[in-house]
């Protein structure tokens, strides 16, 4: 376990080479080369239809890439799916919750699906409830929760098994500003404990909170770097200016 390759694998959480996905004639993602380091909060930015969700779904194993290779937490995307599934957490825009189960039942179900049993399961539920302040809502049906609470519950379910890598697909859509701020504090707690986080967003303030960013446009990676580096690459002042410029260009091409 101490070869050079393993050392690299522990430093790099996600590595993609020439990742491509087509749906019939439509190219959703083209030639994507990404490198995400361990313990990093990595943001993927881009207008709607730029390929963010397709990328995240490929890395989680929900979509099979049309071409290219990738490793996720050191495992090969094509041949080591079950190892990857055990090591990652995923939260979609819809949070993936059962509306007719209570908060506690949702967390218990997902934790059990990830293999937790008995006392370890009970202890983990207590821990998650404290960490995400879910205790007051424990017996409430998930369907009755507001967006912010659903988001926290979704995060509890996605992290029940201490994943090494967390994929968040537009996690703060439809969530109020206070809940968003609290959510990001939790994300940083997770990252501090060694979890790598990949998050897609189109909120500029959230982009600024990411340690590094990738900019996608029409399926292509067009920039990678820190929030400070990227505007300079485009001769713009802020990330928002870059974003708007890209969107304008996309719409111009589409017309």
């Amino acid at each position: 376990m101490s070869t050079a390759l393993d050392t690299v694998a522990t430093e790099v959480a996600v590595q993609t080479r020439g990742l491509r996905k087509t749906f019939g004639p439509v190219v959703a993602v083209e030639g994507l080369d990404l490198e995400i380091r361990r313990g990093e909060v990595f943001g993927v930015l881009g207008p709607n239809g730029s390929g963010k969700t397709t990328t995240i779904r490929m890395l989680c194993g929900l979509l099979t890439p049309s071409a290219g290779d990738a490793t996720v937490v050191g495992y090969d995307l094509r041949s080591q799916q079950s190892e990857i599934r055990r090591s990652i957490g995923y939260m979609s825009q819809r949070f993936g919750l059962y509306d007719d189960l209570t908060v506690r039942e949702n967390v218990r179900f997902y934790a059990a699906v990830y293999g937790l049993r008995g006392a370890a399961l009970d202890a983990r539920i207590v821990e998650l409830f404290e960490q995400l302040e879910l205790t007051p809502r424990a017996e409430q049906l998930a369907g009755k929760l507001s967006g912010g609470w659903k988001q926290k519950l979704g995060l509890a379910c996605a992290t029940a098994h201490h994943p090494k890598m967390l994929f968040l697909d537009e996690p703060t859509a439809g969530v109020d500003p206070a809940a968003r701020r609290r959510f990001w504090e939790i994300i940083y707690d997770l990252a501090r404990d060694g979890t790598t986080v990949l998050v897609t967003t189109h909120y500029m303030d959230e982009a600024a909170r990411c340690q590094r960013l990738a900019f996608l446009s029409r399926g292509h990676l067009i920039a990678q770097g820190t929030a400070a580096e990227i505007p300079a690459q485009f001769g713009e002042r802020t990330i928002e200016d870059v974003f708007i410029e890209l969107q304008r260009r996309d719409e111009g091409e589409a017309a």
Partner: protein
Amino acid sequence: MLARFRRAGLWPMLRKEFIQLRRDRLTLAMVVVLPAVQLLLFGYAIRTEVRNLPTVVLDESQSSESRALIDVMRNTGNFRVIGSVASRAEVRRVIERGEASAAVIIPPDFAANLKRGRSATAQIVVDAADPMAASAAISGAALAGAARSSAILAQRTGGQPPLEVRVRPWYNPGMRSEAYIVPGVIGVLLSITSLVVMSLAVVRERERGTLEQLVVTPLGRTSLLLGKVLPFVAVGYVQMTVVLVLGKLVFDIPVRGSLLLLYLIAGAFITANLGIGLLISTAVKSQVQATQLGYFVMLPNILLSGFMFPRESMPEIAQWIGLVLPLTYFLTVLRGILLKSASLSAIWPETLALVTMATVLFSLSVLRFRKTVE
């Protein structure tokens, strides 16, 4: 084997499904209320045999002979005499108004003809707008006519009638249609639960995005599938038991054969329907579509399987369609075991057909289901 499922998360899946089943009022109603309602509805309302047709009499003969004929007709049970009328115009009027469905018309020369040893004629007018009632009237009239004829003939010759046909209705001596219908209700209910309700439950997971969430977990595909379908197998067996018990208590439906055999073959029938349900769930995008497709499948099941109408009387093409429906075979099994105490040696062709359908449909659906969640 069990340990493998344990690791793969079958138990949490089952636990979750049962909590959801318990909480979903609509499903719960379908599980508990539907069997009772269907049983009572079909058991009481469906009468394929017609008795007690309201009948008027126009007796222009007014003789002991004419009254004897009317008595015989009344005794067939197919006619209920509601009164006498005085003219043919009145016959037309009461039938047009729907007050009577049949009229017995005995002409003035009826008794005279009989006395002279000639053929006497009586007429029965039937409202054939309802063919089922009409055929009951026709068979009742024929029966009464033949019985009365042979009695008169015997009187004249002083001997015994030369021919007598005795009918013995086996298995259902009272000729009650509920004995035919109620076993069928079990088959229809099991189809609804394992086909329609189950496919809805799978589509609901897809719609809410939880199926996608489950796919990124280490939950095994087999556990996912079994966790989704096993609860409905259990529900199906509960419904079947409810109908059997209620059928016995309310309609006195006999259980003459082996219940164990019935429950075993029901397993094959449920599996075949689960297969169809899963195929539906992979083919549709929304619960609305799943419901529509489900009813599209249920309709031929109810009409062409022999649940309400005997398949023998259907056009050939309808009979062929009936042959690909699992319910057709299960109905034979149900009626065979419950009413005729049939053993496996009597119903093995149907059993073989069901096991084959279950294997093919379920394997196909599992393959397709796996593909759509990958």
